[in-house]
């Protein structure tokens, strides 16, 4: 695996490094992690991406991680020597898009598939449905690792890197022979208030316990934080109080609320089903950092291969870095403390499965993928 870093975040930088990597004829796939602030536009990049003779996949994220550094502008380009099988799904938000039909038996004959990487436009709706479809088809025989790309402006724009160019409202699914171990943890705790989602549509919650969602949420958050929660500065306080979809006898699935609608609805990264039981979570910096460490340990333990050279891929929710603020570096230091190289992205949502639990789409969660390098 040939991993390079371009600090300029320019299209020309990406092209130059890519061309250099491709001098090695053993490189069969390219994996790219870029920043939303990079000078990447479809006009600048699409002709180049379309001209590539080998598969390329990746995304543009609010930030990326190179070793123990959080990068807001720059590009990580990985030349991978194993082959990949890529499927692009367009129009994810369109309810007519039949994921199971489109994915179908794409990877059924790919006997050596060990890990499935998924990069999805984080502003798309129906991401959880897409993930569920993958689980329905492929189950837990493989590991899943990925995240949702996009911008902190929460506007949908081209952010998925593919051989078709920069795409929006799309997902790229990559079947790979790379062996992996995956660890997941979030470190959030319930503030012991349970609610029923009495009305929702995809990632918008309209009511909790038959009351406007924002009204209920505001009450709890203001009571707990002692601070005023307004629609205008919603995310600045809401990032400390994610919602969590409860499970029986298992870890809850966290959903980060990021926007309040005019009708007092709350919009999250990822779907929240109607009739779900949800709680409001909170945390403290130590718990969040600890969770990342636990995820790292789980990932390392789950990587059963006895290989000396590994790559740590850190997929962390952007909201965690916002919550931690300056302490985020501590989290970075924790996850990059191994002797192996660490790369990663701060995402709008995380996709991971260690081959044991039901495959889920997470928010505000730390995911560690340990890959065979």
């Amino acid at each position, binding site marked *: 695996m040939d991993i390079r870093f371009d600090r300029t975040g320019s299209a020309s930088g990406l092209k130059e490094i890519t061309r250099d990597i491709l001098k090695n004829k053993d490189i069969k796939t390219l994996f790219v992690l870029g920043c939303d602030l990079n000078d990447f536009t479809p006009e600048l990049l699409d002709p180049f991406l379309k001209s590539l003779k080998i598969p390329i996949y990746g995304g543009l994220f609010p930030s990326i991680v190179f070793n123990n550094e959080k990068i807001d502008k720059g590009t990580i380009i990985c030349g991978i020597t194993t082959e990949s099988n890529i499927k692009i799904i367009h129009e994810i938000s369109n309810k007519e898009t039949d994921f199971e039909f489109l994915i179908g038996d794409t990877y059924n004959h790919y006997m050596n598939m060990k890990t499935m990487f998924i990069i999805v436009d984080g502003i798309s709706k129906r991401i959880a449905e897409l993930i569920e479809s993958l689980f329905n088809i492929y189950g*837990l025989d493989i590991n899943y690792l990925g995240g949702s790309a996009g911008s902190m402006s929460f506007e949908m724009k081209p952010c998925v890197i593919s051989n078709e160019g920069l795409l929006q409202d799309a997902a790229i699914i990559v079947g790979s022979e790379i062996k992996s171990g995956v660890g997941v943890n979030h470190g959030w705790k319930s503030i012991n208030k349970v609610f029923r989602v009495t009305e929702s549509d995809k990632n918008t919650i309209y009511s909790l316990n038959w009351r406007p969602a924002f009204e209920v949420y505001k009450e709890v958050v203001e009571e707990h934080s002692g601070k005023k929660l307004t629609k205008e500065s919603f995310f600045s306080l809401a990032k400390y109080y994610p919602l969590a979809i409860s499970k*029986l006898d298992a870890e809850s699935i966290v959903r980060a609320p990021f926007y309040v609608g005019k009708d007092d609805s709350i919009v999250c990264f990822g779907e929240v*089903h109607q009739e779900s039981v949800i709680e409001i979570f909170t945390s403290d910096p130590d718990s969040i950092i600890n969770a990342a460490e636990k995820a790292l340990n789980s990932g390392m333990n789950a990587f059963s291969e006895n290989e000396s050279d590994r790559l740590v891929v850190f997929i962390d929710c952007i909201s965690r870095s916002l919550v931690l603020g300056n302490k985020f570096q501590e989290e970075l230091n924790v996850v990059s403390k191994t002797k192996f190289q660490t790369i990663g992205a701060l995402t709008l949502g995380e996709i991971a499965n260690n081959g044991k639990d039901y495959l889920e789409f997470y928010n505000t969660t730390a995911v560690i993928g340990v890959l065979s390098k």
Partner: protein
Amino acid sequence: MTVENIREIQLFYEISISIGQSLDLNKMLRESLSVILRKLNCSGGGVHFYETEKNKYVYKDVFSTPRNISKNIAYIEALKMLPREMALKQKSEFISELPLLGESDYGFYVIMELPDVGFLVLLRNNAQLSDEIVKSLKLPLSKLAVSCISCKQNMELSLSRERLEKGVKERTLELLRSNEQLKQEIEERKRIEGERLRMEVELRESKKMESVGTLAAGVAHEINTPMQYITDNTAFLKKFIDMVDPILRKIEEFDFEDDNDRSMELFWDVRNLFNENKVAFMREEAIDAINDSLEGIKQVRNIILAMKEFAHPGTKAKSISDINKALENILTISRNVWKYTAKLELELDHTLPEINCNIDELNQVFLNMIVNATDALEEKYGKSMEGRIFVRTKNSNDSVIIEFEDNGSGIPAEIIDKIYDPFFTTKEVGKGSGQGLAISYDIIVNKHKGFIDVESSEKGTLFKIALPLKI
């Protein structure tokens, strides 16, 4: 109540409410199983139904999440705990053992009853479900079982409706096909009937033309005789005119202004010419010749009119016609046919009303009767003129009776029933087509709703035709 209790109750409520949202079995199971697996953090699950097969219970895979769970080692291990088939009485023993909680090298499993339907297998990797959760799960699973039954019934109902609709469609299609076939058959029959009618008309026309042909020689002869003496008389009249012409010229020269001598001279010239040429005698002869010729012309005219009426192009339309006159015409034009064989006696009832009929077709019948009678008489008597033909008309109350009787050798009893059959004939080849009586029967019985009857013995044959006054 603790937050944990509330959460648990709410989660079971969430599971329960997710069950039975569709009557489509696959959709219902997919949605229900998805929530069950997510809420219980299971790595997979599958629903199996009992089915009876050769007096044994077997279980069939119905639905699983993920789809490929049957290849999952943990799932295979869990299913090993179940008998693949069991005797009917063993089923209740098996059910009593549920829920079955276990652990293999590959994970934990729970097998739970879906009452009256089958069972559900859940896989979990990290830890076994607690007894409390398993206990609480029974109620939602009972609902799942009921939903499965509803879906199955709906499926059967849909299938039966589809079968019914298919049956109705097939039957409708069959009916449409039969209808189409029937239409085609009707069209074909119409075409054949039209063809038959056309051929019948053509046949009748050709029969008539055949009769015209038969009659032509006789008619020519009939015309020829008066024409002969008309010609002779005309020649005589020309001679008479030539003879009288000088006399007339002398008379023309006569002028009262002339002197007596000249007048006397002309008078004597006329007188001499008159006497020399026996003008007085010739004049009588000329008057006779003119009268004879007029009679001959009248005779020819009658024959031609009769022939014209007989031979004019047939029409299907009926019209008010005089049967007596038609018979007279027929006898006129057929005179040459019978006059050398038989004496014909016409006994017409002059009270006979005119009737609405197709006279053209009836002429055909009448001529046919005359020709047949003549043939029969010729066969018996040759040209000895012993044959007799009687043609009679009678006025019955509601019909007109026409009889044709001859004193021929009669029709043998063994063939009398066949005489109206098409193509049946006893005449020598080339003389009769066997269509005459068949066509006559059709014209009288079918076209005019009348009847035709025959009485025959060795002494002769009587054909009696009755035509109703109101057709």
